[in-house]
């Protein structure tokens, strides 16, 4: 079993912490926001309790929570053998974090950047351990997804890469090897698709529901791109598209203004109760979302 540091207690960090703890690893979960930690723990407990209902195995929620220690201070990571970073997809925030975290964590530990877009080589350059720096792109919801993208940086050692592959395997994840490039494979394609889908809503070509219906009914996808955006987080989508736009300096990645508007308005999808669709008990009161295509229903997610 490995003692793993997890930084960031948002949707991805909580999912990674849960997956690790469910598989018997001990987790040190750090977030500077105590409310985020509280919310993450309560979410993990709920997910574990509901496992059987969702067709999974029975999970002892108490035992899982018992393997997770938490703090707002990075010092909790000092003894971690692997540290998985899951903070917002924002270069400045990540830069500040890695500078602060590198001297605190023991020198033989491997850093894993859980990012959907930022080049691993660039992140590794922020630390004094570029050989022990690996990129992993986890999918959401983490505990339920069977595969990840595994990305070495320019200087990553084979030993570090294999160590992370073993850890992923113990979490039930198949690692798919991808070379380092902004957006890797998944997000170069997915983020442009979601961005273009948002443009269709923005330009009144179709409602969010109609766009998703085309993908579900015509292509047989289990979810449409805007349902997916709500699940991932509209703000996260925007940040990812901005990273692609900034990195490639190519206008094809220009973020849709609707994504910016929704992010500013707090319409971040499932996690805030409203995005392209409305969720939660206030659904009927909220009515159609500011996205113009929002409807009061829970999109299919099986």
């Amino acid at each position, binding site marked *: 079993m490995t003692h793993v540091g997890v930084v960031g207690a948002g949707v991805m960090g909580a999912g990674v912490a849960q997956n690790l703890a469910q598989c018997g690893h001990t987790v040190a979960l750090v977030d500077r926001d105590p409310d985020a930690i509280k919310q993450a723990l309560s979410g993990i407990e*709920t997910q574990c*309790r*509901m496992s*059987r*209902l*969702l*067709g999974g195995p*029975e999970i002892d*929620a108490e035992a899982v929570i018992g393997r997770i220690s938490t703090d707002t201070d990075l010092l909790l990571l000092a003894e971690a053998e692997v540290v998985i970073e899951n903070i917002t997809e924002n270069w400045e925030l990540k830069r500040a974090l890695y500078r602060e975290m590198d001297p605190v964590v023991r020198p033989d530990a491997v850093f894993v950047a859980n990012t959907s877009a930022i080049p691993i080589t660039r992140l590794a350059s922020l630390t004094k351990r570029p050989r022990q720096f690996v990129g992993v792109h986890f999918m959401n919801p983490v505990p339920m997804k069977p595969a990840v993208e595994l990305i070495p940086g320019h200087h990553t050692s084979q030993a570090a890469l294999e160590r992370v592959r073993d850890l992923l395997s113990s979490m039930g994840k198949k690692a798919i090897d991808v070379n380092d490039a902004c957006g890797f494979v998944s997000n170069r394609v997915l983020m442009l698709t979601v961005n273009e889908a948002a443009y269709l809503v923005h330009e009144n070509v179709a409602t969010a529901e109609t766009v998703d219906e085309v993908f579900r009914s015509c292509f047989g996808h289990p979810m449409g791109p805007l349902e997916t955006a709500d699940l991932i987080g509209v703000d996260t989508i925007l940040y990812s598209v901005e990273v692609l736009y900034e990195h490639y300096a190519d206008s094809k990645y220009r973020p849709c203004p609707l994504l910016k508007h929704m992010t500013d308005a707090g319409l971040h999808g499932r996690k805030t109760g409203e995005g392209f669709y409305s969720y*939660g*008990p206030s*659904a*009927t009161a909220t009515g159609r979302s500011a996205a113009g295509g929002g409807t*009061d*229903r*829970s999109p*299919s*997610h*099986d």
Partner: protein
Amino acid sequence: MSEDIRTPIREFISAKFPQISLDDDEDILALGFVNSLFAMELVMFVERTFGVRVPNEQLKLDNFRTMNAMADLVRGLSESMRLSAG
């Protein structure tokens, strides 16, 4: 008392799926609109609304299959809470 339990549940489901009208013994899972995420929302709603906690062994889809099944579950949990409190 059963109606007191069924009414808020019915309202919760109708708010999400206005096109559905439900009989008390109708299998909502068979209607095809309930996915795993909605089943979870339903559990959270029932716990929040009726102040109960569904124990692990009761967290199975059969207990959330019909309005009557959910009413029975809530009634049973409320009863055992009352007994343990008093």
